[in-house]
């Protein structure tokens, strides 16, 4: 396993200067001659030097195809790739390595479950439960499945603050309910859902439940055994790793009875024209050459995050969220969308009646990167009767000084629009 150089001491508050020095892009990029203020971490986060170095080391010294060759490099690459699986398993506290499937992103992981579990075990009249705050990635695959099977999508409502109405969620369960898939943290609102409770309710009704952890794993420790969910998915590029790799955790018993998603090499034990025998899990779901370099770099990202410490990350991000919320709320006319009691460091807002795209374009003049749009969560926008929001999303390398820049820039936009 790769040791990540220790850049920060293991305890005490974050040494922000040293942390920021780990992320080359934060100092190398200037926008309009101004330092980059990167507040679009919920869309994709940046990569620290140890992860970049791991990618480079893999490509310069370790690359070959895996599980296929008897030669030296193939063994090195296979070992590193399987070690990465182990790193992910420990990160999620799964029981076994074979419960970790590498996918290409979280979208791919959800589609895998929709196909491998949904298409195999759902039928006409069956119901799938999601919430009103899902990312399109956790809506569309289920809609496609419903369309094919004549099943029905049931949506748990959210209240004005952006919290799931738990009584309504629970009321959705009935004997036809066959699958639940909910997000751990909302990318548009920042809401941290009470997934433990939601899982317990699903469990009580004997329904398998999937958690979309795309916006959660970078902010808080996740223990899939403590949660007792059936599936948990996340995506590498939001966890300071590369694009092109995602993870599906699934309980072994479920993965075993599921259909393979894609057919091809690596996912088989033997092939004749008469009959193909599928490989064991997780390989059954990893057809073709997987994102080897990306999975290995993702493991380095996990090591990095662990070095920094998710508790320290959470503490600093809480401070960023609190300060940003206060700073923006202090500006007359600014409305914050998503005011749940439990929030990750994601702040959606509306500036007077200025369209979020104008806000985003103008903030960019100050070097500030925020996301504007519907955040692939159009039902959320419809819920609040707005077409879009501007969204600042913070990572542990963001600073309070950057929040000040954001607030100053928002004030300027408001003045410009008078």
């Amino acid at each position, binding site marked *: 396993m790769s040791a990540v150089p220790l850049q920060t001491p293991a305890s005490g508050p974050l040494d922000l200067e040293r942390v920021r020095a780990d992320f080359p892009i934060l100092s190398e990029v200037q926008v*309009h001659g101004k330092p980059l203020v990167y507040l679009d971490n919920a869309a994709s986060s940046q990569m620290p030097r140890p992860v970049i170095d791991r990618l480079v080391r893999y490509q310069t010294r370790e690359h070959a195809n895996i599980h296929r060759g008897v030669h030296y490099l193939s063994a090195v690459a296979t070992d590193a790739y399987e070690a990465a699986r182990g790193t992910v398993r420990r990160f999620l506290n799964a029981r076994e390595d074979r419960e970790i499937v590498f996918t290409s992103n979280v979208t791919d992981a959800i589609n895998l479950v929709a196909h491998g579990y949904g298409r195999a075990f759902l039928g006409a009249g069956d119901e799938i439960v999601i919430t009103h705050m899902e990312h399109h990635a956790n809506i569309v695959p289920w809609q496609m499945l419903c369309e094919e099977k004549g099943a029905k999508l049931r949506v748990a409502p959210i209240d004005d603050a952006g919290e799931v109405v738990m009584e309504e969620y629970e009321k959705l369960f009935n004997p036809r309910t066959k699958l639940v898939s909910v997000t751990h943290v909302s990318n548009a609102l920042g809401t941290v859902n009470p997934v433990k409770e939601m899982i317990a309710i699903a469990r009580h009704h004997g329904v398998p439940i999937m958690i979309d952890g795309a916006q959660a794993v970078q902010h808080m420790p996740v223990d899939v055994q403590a949660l007792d969910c059936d599936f948990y998915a996340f995506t590498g590029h939001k966890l300071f790793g590369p694009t092109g790799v995602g993870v599906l955790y699934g309980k072994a018993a479920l993965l075993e009875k599921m259909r393979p998603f894609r057919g091809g090499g690596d996912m088989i034990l033997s092939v004749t024209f008469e009959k193909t025998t599928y490989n064991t899990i997780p390989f059954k779901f990893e057809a073709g050459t997987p994102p080897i370099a990306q999975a290995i770099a993702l493991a380095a990202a996990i090591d990095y995050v662990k070095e920094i410490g998710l508790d320290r990350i959470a503490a600093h991000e809480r401070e960023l969220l609190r300060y940003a919320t206060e700073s923006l709320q202090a500006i007359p006319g600014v409305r914050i969308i998503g005011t749940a009691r439990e929030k990750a460091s994601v702040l959606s807002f509306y500036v007077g009646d200025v*369209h979020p*795209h*104008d806000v985003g*374009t*103008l903030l960019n003049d100050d070097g500030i990167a925020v996301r504007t749009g519907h955040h692939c969560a159009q039902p959320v*926008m419809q819920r609040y009767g707005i*077409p879009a929001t501007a969204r600042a999303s913070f990572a542990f390398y963001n600073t309070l000084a950057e929040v000040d820049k954001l607030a100053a820039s928002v004030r300027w936009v408001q003045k*410009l*629009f008078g």
Partner: protein
Amino acid sequence: MDSSQLYQEIILDHNKKPRNWGKVADCTHKSEGLNPLCGDHIWVTLKLADGAIDAIAFEGQSCAICKASASMMTAAVKGRKVDEVETLVQEFRDMTTGKLDVAGGAHHLGRLTVFAGVKDLPVRVKCAILPWHTLHAALTQEAVASTEGDNDPIAAG
């Protein structure tokens, strides 16, 4: 370029007080324009008489660039003949995609040249062009215009 150069007085003014806002009740042509990327959504209604635009109006929900573009468009095309309007549509599209240099070449854009700067903001080009697409669609009787697919100003290159 700094985008604040684009958000000039005139654009901010049209955004705040859009001209020809609403619907032409006895319209002969209408179309709906949608930019799925940012959610701009507008409707253009117009009345043709003797081959010219007798009345035109727009409404919808959009960013300032789109709204100001629509507002100034309606003001610019009112009273013009259809072929003149189509020329303007083409020129506006060429200007915002960088194919027409408004300082050099001959054109009929007049004050619409305040949108020339949008060519340096590729993600906002669609916002500026949407009203013009929608107008074109109305004149050619397409029901819905979109900035995606065939009408993509960037892909259509």
